[in-house]
C-alpha cells in the first residue's frame, strides 16, 4: 500500500511550475556565457541550454540580471 501511495504522490507531483523570465536571442555566445555565469553566481538559474543559448531565471533574479545586462550595454557605448 505504501508503494501505491508513493506512486500516487509521484503522479501528483509530476508537474512543477515556477515563475520566471526566459532569456534568448543573445547576440553572441560570449554574451550568453557571460550573463549566464553571472546569473549562476547569484543562484537564480532555473534552466539553461548552451546549444539553444537560452536560460530561465527566477522572478527575483530577473531584476539583478537585467541590471547586469544594462550595465554591460552602457559600458559598451
Amino acid at each position, binding site marked *: *500500500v505504501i508503494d*501505491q501511495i508513493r506512486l*500516487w504522490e509521484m*503522479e*501528483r507531483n*509530476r*508537474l*512543477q*511550475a*515556477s*515563475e*520566471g*523570465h*526566459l*532569456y*534568448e*536571442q*543573445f*547576440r553572441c555566445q560570449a*554574451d550568453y556565457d557571460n*550573463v549566464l555565469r553571472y546569473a549562476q553566481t547569484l543562484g537564480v538559474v*532555473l*534552466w539553461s*541550454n548552451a546549444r*539553444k543559448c*537560452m536560460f*530561465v531565471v527566477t522572478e527575483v533574479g*530577473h531584476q539583478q540580471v*537585467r541590471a547586469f*545586462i544594462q550595465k554591460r*550595454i552602457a559600458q559598451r557605448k
Partner: protein
Amino acid sequence: MVKVIKGVLLQCDPTVKQVILNLDERDHFIIEDLDETHVFVEASCVEKVKKSLEDLLEENTYKFESQPPNNKD
C-alpha cells in the same frame, strides 16, 4: 542584444509534457518548447493546465481510489 520573456517554467516528465503539447494544440499557450522535460508557457494558462492534468490523472486513478479501504489488522 537579448530578448526577455516573462512566463512560467513547467518541469514535468515526458509523458506529462506530451499531454501539455496536446493541450497547446487547442489553446496555444506555449512560448518556448525547451527540452524533453521543460516548457516555458504563458502564466495565465498554468492553472488551466494543472486542472486538465489533474482531471486526466483523476480518470486514471479512479478505480484505485474507489476501492474500499483495506481491513485493519
